[in-house]
């Protein structure tokens, strides 16, 4: 018995050794990760970044952003051309590309995908308005399209009748689509590039019902089988994809990086995409380093893993062919005051003092490796309304001034000021950032109490206005300053996105006018003015405009970061030979001497 058990244990031990799966390099496969569970692939519920990137592989919309051009530019995707807009700016007419086919799926007769029609877009947009779907994108079109709200209200709480027509959504013929807006709404076109409005076939929704979110049927470059929530999504190239070509226009920079080499070639380039759901950042990091992932968009909080403090990409990565792609993003971080809180409500001096005591440059150094841009107003660079020359009066670090203002605010050296509660996420990086804020405030005698929360708890507190101060970031939904200024628009107060509940009559009035103007220098000037005025009021202590960090291996080609990454995977390419060679050489798992990495 004794010997038997011994033998058994030894056998088991042996099987543990060399337990890695053999890799297959024959197919062209793009492997990447996503750091949160995907909510299923129904465009109507696509809210978060993760899900929308996945959805955009399978579904497409009328418009999309040009892959390479910056600032971001809209261009037609399923539309033939940009729309004809009527003189009063209220009617948009689109011509839809002919011959676009939906994926082959059993929901269609004979399993063959049918041709895309104008009616499909009308159907998809009605789904956004259908209260039963509780679409997280409804806010984009709420009140904007003639008759749509009436339709939505009519069927509230009931099964909606999709044959009931809506005046503002008409299909003049199978390939002509017309929108009628209730007011001038220049941001309307952006919503047509967002996944919520992407074309969905009625047959699929009817057939799959509640399981539609797991059975995507679109017109996109990739398709996937039934999604089974298994931490891995596998996409196959769509064999019936129409002719789409790699862009031939780009900047000099793009050319230098080799991004224009495949110009004019038909996409998609890869045969398969594998998306691994890795919720633990440490795991996804190791997976990337070992070559299991072709690239990894590092969640903004974890980039400090890759970069040696103060320096660029650690030298050992360079030796392994790993490239760190740093690109500006349309984003802003801030610490919000709940301006309805009695402490902050009428004490602008207190808010200004706290802002002056916060060393934003140090914040940038510690947490963003100096790659962020210290925000002077809420509008990030790259869109109208951003003024590179403006420096906000109270956004500069000045301890002396801070102390003086604090005394003027009625709390000399912080005496008499109660403890201030600061809400943040329990993630390590958020906690550390909060600790830094706490330390900064203690320098002028203010005590900050840091409370950690899960994301749902934090959302709850901010929406219910029970948070006194909290840390937040805002990523632009589309490249228009309106999307950022609306964070300070009175009527958008909680539960809307205006978490600081800032409400300034003048601001509201001017914003109302500006947001309906067509983009141009006049509008940009108004946006600038508004943003700068608000900076002075300090409803938020602005942090930085963050950059995105993407780690790529040398064998990933044609990659360019985009804030609006919908559908860009069709342009990526993978050099499988180089990948195989690099991984087999074993260089990826070695550590290069960290001491040499300190070389400047």
């Amino acid at each position, binding site marked *: *018995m*004794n010997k038997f*058990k*011994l033998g*058994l*244990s030894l056998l*088991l031990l042996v*099987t*543990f*050794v060399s*337990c*890695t*799966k053999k890799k297959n390099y024959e197919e062209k496969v793009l492997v990447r990760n996503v750091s949160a*569970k995907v*909510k*299923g692939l*129904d465009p109507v*519920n696509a*809210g*978060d970044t993760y899900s929308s990137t996945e959805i955009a592989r399978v579904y497409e919309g009328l418009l999309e952003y040009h892959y390479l051009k910056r600032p971001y530019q809209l261009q037609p995707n399923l539309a033939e051309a940009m729309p004809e807009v009527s003189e009063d700016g209220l009617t948009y007419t689109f011509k839809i590309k002919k011959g676009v086919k939906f994926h082959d799926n059993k929901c269609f007769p004979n399993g063959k995908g049918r041709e895309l029609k104008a009616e499909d877009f009308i159907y998809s947009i009605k789904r956004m308005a259908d*209260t*039963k779907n*509780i679409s*997280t994108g*409804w*806010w984009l079109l*709420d009140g904007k399209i003639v008759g749509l709200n009436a339709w939505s209200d009519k069927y509230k*709480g009931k099964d909606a009748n999709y044959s009931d027509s809506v005046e503002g959504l008409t299909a003049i013929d199978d390939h002509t689509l017309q929108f009628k807006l209730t007011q001038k709404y220049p941001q309307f076109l952006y919503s047509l590039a967002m996944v919520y409005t992407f074309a969905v076939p009625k047959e699929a929704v009817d057939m799959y019902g*509640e*399981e539609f*979110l*797991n059975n995507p049927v679109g017109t996109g470059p990739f398709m996937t089988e039934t999604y*089974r*929530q*298994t*931490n*891995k999504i596998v996409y196959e190239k769509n064999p019936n994809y129409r002719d789409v070509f790699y862009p031939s226009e780009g900047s000099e920079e793009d050319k230098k990086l080799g991004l224009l080499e495949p110009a004019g070639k038909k996409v998609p380039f890869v045969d398969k995409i594998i998306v*691994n*759901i*890795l*919720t*633990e950042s*440490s*795991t*996804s990091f*190791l*997976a990337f380093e*070992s070559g*299991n992932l072709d690239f990894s968009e590092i969640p903004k909080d974890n980039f400090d893993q890759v970069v040696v403090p103060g320096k660029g990409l650690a030298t050992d990565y360079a030796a392994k062919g790993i490239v760190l792609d740093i690109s500006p993003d349309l984003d802003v971080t801030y610490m919000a005051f709940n301006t309805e809180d009695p402490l902050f409500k009428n004490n602008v001096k207190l808010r200004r003092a706290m802002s002056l005591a916060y060393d934003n440059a140090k914040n940038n150094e510690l947490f963003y490796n100096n790659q962020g841009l210290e925000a002077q107003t809420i509008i990030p660079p790259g869109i109208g309304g951003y003024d590179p020359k403006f420096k906000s009066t109270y956004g500069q670090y000045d301890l002396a001034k801070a102390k003086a203002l604090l005394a003027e605010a009625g709390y000399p050296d912080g005496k008499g000021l109660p403890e201030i509660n600061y809400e943040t996420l329990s993630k390590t990086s958020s906690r550390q950032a909060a600790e830094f804020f706490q330390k900064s405030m203690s320098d002028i005698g203010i005590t900050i109490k840091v409370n950690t929360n*899960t994301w*749902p*708890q934090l*959302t*709850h507190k901010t*929406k*219910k206005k029970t948070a006194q101060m909290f840390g937040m970031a805002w990523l632009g939904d589309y490249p228009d300053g309106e999307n950022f200024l609306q964070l300070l628009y009175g009527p958008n107060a909680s*539960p809307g*996105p205006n978490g600081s509940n800032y409400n300034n009559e003048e601001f509201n009035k001017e914003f109302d006018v500006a947001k309906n103007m067509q983009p141009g220098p006049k509008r940009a000037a108004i946006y600038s003015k508004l943003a700068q005025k608000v900076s002075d009021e300090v409803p938020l202590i602005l942090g930085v405009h963050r950059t995105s960090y993407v780690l790529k291996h040398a064998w990933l080609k044609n990659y360019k970061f985009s804030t609006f990454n919908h559908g860009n995977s069709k342009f990526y390419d993978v050099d499988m030979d180089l990948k195989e060679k690099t991984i087999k050489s074993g260089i990826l*798992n070695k*550590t290069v001497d960290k001491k040499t990495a300190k070389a400047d």
Partner: protein
Amino acid sequence: MNGNLNYILRRLLYLVPVLLGVCFLIFILFNVVAPDPVHMLLGKHPSQDQIIQLREQLGLNKSLFFQYVDIVRSAFTFDFGRSWSTKQDISTMFMNGAIPSLTLTLPAFTIATFTSIFFAVIVAYFRGKGIDLFIRISCIAMMSISSLVYILVFQYFLAFKWGLFEISGYEYGFPNFLYYVSLPILIWVILSLGPDIRFYRTLILDEIYQDYVRTARAKGLSERVILFKHVLRNAMIPIVTYTVVQLPFLLLGSLLLESFFSIPGLGDMTINALNASDFPVLKAMSIFSAVAYIFFTLMQDIIYTIVDPRIKLQ
């Protein structure tokens, strides 16, 4: 026999009050004191209409009593609705998640049990000597390190640095999944060895100190024969019962291991639900584990009676 049948039926019926109790506890935790989930589910720009509509859909407008009834109903019909964060049907999630969890926990448990018993026997045989002390101290030492540390260190060195195991991921089907679960299994085994060896050792030593052992020794039987022919056999009873009690917990998977190694099992599901405040999933997990727990403790008692006729079920 009739008496025993009665007992079994009674114990099965005992499931009902416990389940009601669990539902009540869940009710208090999730429906009464927990924060309103609506805002979290609606994204950045909720409209008032949507808030109302969602509350209606989630059944939050019903009176507290009916909310409790809903929970009880879901417990008995095993229809838990859809997850708030992933919008998937929860019963399907359960079935999908059970398999990966089991491919990790069953082999891990088997290996751990056999290995632990093996070492426990050695330790019992050589009690008092050097190897006994060595193994016991190793056990305590292994138990003194947090499981999180094991995961971090092993994943970094064994999987990443030395390339011996896969870093993360999972594939269905035999033998594919073996590649992915082997490191988690190894970690599980190491985590279990400490407490398990000590426990089995205690059981075996309990037997060894019995009178009949002294008698056997007096009769001239060798230590080895005593150990294997008599002690081990008698110790099997509590060993088996202990083993059976562990089974329901195997189904729940290991929360940390599945999360770090990206194994789509029930443990991974639970961690995601915890982070996303996904109440339907959490409620479902609680009910499910309550049922499993009761069922298996009943099995434990039944096996006990069958195996040891001295012990009567009361």
